[in-house]
């Protein structure tokens, strides 16, 4: 199956891969997801075309998760487009992780020093993690995975 179709626009080919990468870079640079209209404006494509491509990136490439019943991006793992319990900061930039794994992964994939703020779901105690020089420098707490690996993508919101 061809999961990376192309359209002819403005004399050049735009691939789904190019759109995926731009969405990720938008998260890195701004901490939020671009809307379908913003993506369409950037690539000079029709919003309906972008919505179709976003659905394809979700359903065929497993590259994005859209908010149910919409064309808006919910997750580009490890980034979350909506606020969560896992706040990631580096200097003036900040992001939301989908879980503690993803929060740490944001700092890892950007390759920057920073911190993750969360809280123990039972006690409510704030927990702060720091990454310095590519190493986890300050590590409070212990990790719990409730869902076995084979079921991680059965309900990604719960996982």
């Amino acid at each position, binding site marked *: 199956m061809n999961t990376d179709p192309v359209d002819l626009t403005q004399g050049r080919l735009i691939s789904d*891969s*190019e759109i995926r990468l731009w969405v990720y870079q938008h998260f890195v640079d701004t901490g939020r997801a671009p809307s379908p209209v913003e993506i369409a404006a950037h690539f000079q494509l029709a919003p309906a075309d972008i919505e179709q491509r976003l659905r394809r990136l979700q359903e065929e490439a497993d590259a994005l998760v859209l908010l149910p019943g919409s064309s808006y991006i919910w997750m580009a793992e490890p980034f979350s487009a909506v606020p969560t319990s896992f706040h990631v900061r580096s200097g003036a930039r900040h992001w939301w992780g989908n879980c503690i*794994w*993803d929060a740490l992964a944001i700092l890892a994939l950007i390759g920057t020093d920073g911190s993750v703020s969360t809280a123990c779901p039972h006690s409510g105690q704030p927990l702060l993690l720091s990454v310095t020089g590519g190493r986890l420098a300050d*590590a409070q707490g212990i*990790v*719990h995975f409730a869902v076995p690996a084979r079921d991680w993508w059965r309900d990604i919101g719960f996982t």
Partner: protein
Amino acid sequence: MLLFRSEDDIVAWCERRHITPGAVFALAQLWRLATAWYDDRLDPAWRRRTAPQRQAILDAVGLTGSFWRLTDS
């Protein structure tokens, strides 16, 4: 995938929600997993890793056993 203050908090949280406790491990191991699992996301040629490739990452960071099997086989 949550971060708790202590193992006691995990047990109490699971009991309160009638959830069977899953896997518990240290942050240092999660950092290794996070670093390896997502290191390809900014690659222009990214394709979702196959199940064997993902399983190899779990194995490499020491997450082995039935809880960490991505498939039933």
